[in-house]
């Protein structure tokens, strides 16, 4: 039986309460009758033999590319770059898809007699991965073969000797990327394309770039004109990355792109109710919901966080394609859209969302308030094609505990950003003009990024810019059940219950508003007509 597509439910009085994620937990909320709930499609069927699918993709590349085996030769310099810890979410059960792909690439390289091979985590300005995280992504065998010999690297966007400036695009954008990769005869980039935003030219142009280069597209103007981030044809962020990617290719750097798509089988079977539509919950689902809810209510926050971050997703491979970047990415998007797209008719006055415990930047870490903002307004708000789910001047209601808490090792600049920048202004343009450069070039943050496990000093700014389109578009943002001081610091309104939040929202959008709930995760992409 083929998986059911996503759909939009209109609630009535008989509709059971709706599941809202709420950080390390969830709530059942009753939406007003007449509200819409956008449910994601069910997980697509996985490819039967993932390893064979990978081998086939490498042997039958898309676009203007030879099979990978034909691109490999003795004496060449090969760099295999791969997506970092921010993908997939949650981390997948082993073997991770990166491991499968990289093992296949290494087999071909070994067969061709390539002995100058380096693996490189494409961190961009993210934190370095720990040994455990690298082992999880690559598998122990690959890790042991490369790491002890210094051949498993992590891109360092602040290494003055490790970057090369490739000139500027026609639009004047600096293109500066990792020197080892740029001076390789071939870059093989291994992607996990969890959402439509991922992959394409963004892989190298962002994942292996420096701040000098990234600032041309990771900025407020670009993000305000990315409508949405999940629609590359209407995204300035992607347009800029594409210009850079083409510039990189024109510079003679050869990239063999490998993109993989996963289905939305997001949570393990013990949490099956999280992926079911509420009226289809079995007795067991209801019992699990009650038992886990009761248990979580008694669990200290730190322990609950640790439990959730130990979840390994059963995500399964739905496609793998390789070859020339743009041809590969076009095929990838077809698969992503097939898995995620849900047609939705018209916009809504109020968009509600329950935000989970994890986003790309707090894997094995704390979801601090800035990341809550980014997840809600940067990611969930942008899960659309066409028009935003919520109308201009509408309201987003997010449910999350939004603790005033930061991971001191992972997010040091976030603490100062929250304490000092947001205390002064929440306006992205003002923040960018007044504070960005100082944080981006702060030698302490640079030191921590390079030597510890810290996100780059500028990273919290990018998180804030990620929500800049939403901030420009919305009339108000309300957070249900959040730390009141933290919510207010971000310029949002706190509410203790959804009912209160809906009343507050009505003050902004008028009486009898339309309400739409985005039932994620699992993720979806609303195609709004």
């Amino acid at each position, binding site marked *: 039986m083929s998986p059911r597509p996503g759909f939009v439910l209109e609630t009535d009085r008989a509709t059971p309460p709706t599941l809202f994620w709420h950080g390390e937990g969830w709530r059942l909320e009753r939406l007003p009758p007449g509200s819409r709930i956008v449910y994601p499609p069910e997980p697509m069927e996985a490819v039967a033999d993932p390893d064979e699918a990978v081998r086939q993709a490498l042997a039958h590349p898309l676009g203007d590319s030879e099979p990978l085996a034909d691109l490999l030769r003795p004496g060449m310099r090969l760099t295999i770059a791969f997506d970092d810890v921010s993908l997939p979410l949650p981390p997948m059960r082993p073997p991770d898809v990166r491991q499968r792909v990289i093992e296949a690439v290494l087999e071909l390289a070994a067969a061709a007699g390539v002995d100058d091979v380096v693996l490189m985590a494409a961190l961009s300005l993210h934190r370095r991965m720990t040994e455990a995280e690298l082992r999880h992504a690559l598998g122990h065998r690959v890790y042991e073969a490369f790491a002890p010999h210094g051949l498993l690297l992590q891109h360092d966007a602040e290494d003055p000797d490790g970057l090369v400036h490739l000139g500027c695009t026609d639009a004047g954008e600096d293109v500066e990327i990792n020197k080892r990769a740029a001076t390789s005869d071939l870059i093989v980039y291994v992607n996990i394309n969890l959402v439509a935003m991922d992959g394409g030219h963004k892989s190298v142009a962002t994942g292996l770039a420096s701040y000098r280069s990234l600032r041309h597209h990771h900025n407020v103007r670009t993000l305000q004109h990315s409508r949405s981030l999940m629609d590359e044809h209407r995204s300035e962020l992607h347009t800029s990355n594409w210009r850079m990617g083409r510039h990189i290719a024109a510079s003679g750097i050869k990239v063999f792109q490998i993109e993989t798509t996963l289905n939305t089988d997001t949570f393990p079977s013990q949490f099956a109710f999280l992926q079911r539509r509420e009226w289809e919950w079995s007795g067991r689902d209801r019992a699990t919901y009650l038992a886990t809810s009761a248990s979580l209510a008694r669990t200290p926050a730190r322990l609950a966080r640790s439990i959730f971050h130990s979840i390994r997703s059963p995500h399964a491979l739905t496609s793998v394609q390789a070859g020339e970047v743009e041809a590969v990415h076009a095929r990838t998007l077809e698969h992503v859209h097939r898995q995620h797209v849900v047609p939705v008719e018209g916009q809504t006055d109020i968009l509600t969302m329950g935000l989970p415990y994890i986003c790309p930047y707090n894997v094995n870490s704390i979801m601090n308030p800035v990341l809550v903002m980014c997840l809600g307004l940067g990611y969930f708000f942008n899960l659309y094609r066409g028009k935003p789910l919520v109308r201009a001047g509408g309201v987003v209601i997010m449910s999350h505990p939004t603790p005033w808490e930061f991971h001191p090792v992972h997010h040091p600049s976030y603490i*100062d950003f929250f304490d*000092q920048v947001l205390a002064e202004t929440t306006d992205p343009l003002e923040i960018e003009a007044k504070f960005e450069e100082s944080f981006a070039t*702060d030698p302490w943050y640079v030191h921590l990024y390079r030597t510890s496990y810290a996100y780059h000093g500028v990273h919290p700014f990018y998180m804030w810019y990620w929500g800049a389109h939403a901030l420009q578009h919305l009339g108000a943002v309300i957070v249900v059940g959040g730390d009141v001081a933290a919510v207010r610091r971000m310029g949002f309104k706190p509410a203790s219950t959804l009912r209160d939040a809906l009343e507050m929202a009505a003050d902004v959008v008028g009486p009898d508003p339309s309400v739409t709930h985005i039932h994620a995760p699992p993720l979806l992409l609303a195609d709004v007509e």
Partner: protein
Amino acid sequence: MRALLFERSLAKVAASRLAGSVVPGRGARFGPLRLASLSEPEPPGPDWMRVRPKLAGICGSDLATLDGHGSRYFEPLVSFPFVPGHEVVGELDDGARVVLEPVLGCQARGVHPPCPACAQGDTGDCERVAFGHLRPGLQTGYCADTGGGWSTAFVAHRSQLHPVPDSFSDRDAVMVEPTACAVHGALRVPTEGALVVVIGAGTLGLCTVAAVRRLGLPGTLVVVAKHPEQRRLATELGADLVVEPQGARRAVRLQTRSLAVDGRLTGGADVVIDCVGSARSLADALAVVRPRGQVVLLGMPEPFRTDLTPLWHREVALVGAYAYGSEPPAAGRARARTFALAFELVADAGLGRLVSATYPLERYREAVEHAASAGRQGGVKVAFDLRGQRATGERRARGAGA
């Protein structure tokens, strides 16, 4: 006359110390302070005048004395029993309003020739505060011969009195003395163009913020303040950045783009003014000052042990700032009396607003406890209101905040 009298009693000092360590300000309830009916002090000489206090502030040094936390260093420099109160606006017999400059220097003590410090106008550094025709007492409010502001009458030497402009309210006027302390602390070291950190935002801290901003011309002024109202006032008075104590190191690190080792900054602020005077505040000051920077100790310190290794290692200058006198010329300004600058600053910055509550003498226990927890309660300066009280002991209860 009615007065609060502080007597020498080791047992009561011990009791106040115990009580004050449990609840700040509670030392007034169990210690050697009592409300008494006394004879008015006699003027010790022809240039002495009787002053009838209108408002008399409760200072941090008073609180330390009442809670038994003060240093024994002062014992030979005071004489018992004394009437506390050195932040005073009062009235002379002819009805003129005056502010007291409480230091009992050479001129007040009849010492001729004056010591070198007094000769230069630096009365705060007087070398004769235990000599002359008065019993020891570094200031009015610690001398058995003069009385003090927490009473309905005391005596002061003509040189100690400053006329109050008509434009000043009594609240403005009672803020002049603490403001003078702040002015002196702010001008103790050059701060022009510097990154200055003020630790503490009680009365002294807030006055120091105003003084540094208006007289010190700093590049950036960072204030470390515990309580929300203090943070609001610090911003109003000219702080560029106000942070909570736990955020101080982060804030200074960010301002200076310093690195850090195990939480200690490698760089830091040019000048740190410690308006608290505790082991914690001095440790914080040493943690955020740059190598060869300067720490001004302005808040009266309690006895404490501290690690001076960073001071030694980073060649930091630790500078005391006590009271007032005269200030050296700077930024186009001629040498000036500290009190003259303080009068200007009170008017310019509107520091009278820092008086948050007043109490009659009879409610001195409440007053002292309120003063000791003013920051937590959203207040700053607490004072005794003696307007309407007569030397014969007429009592009129007046509520807090009157």
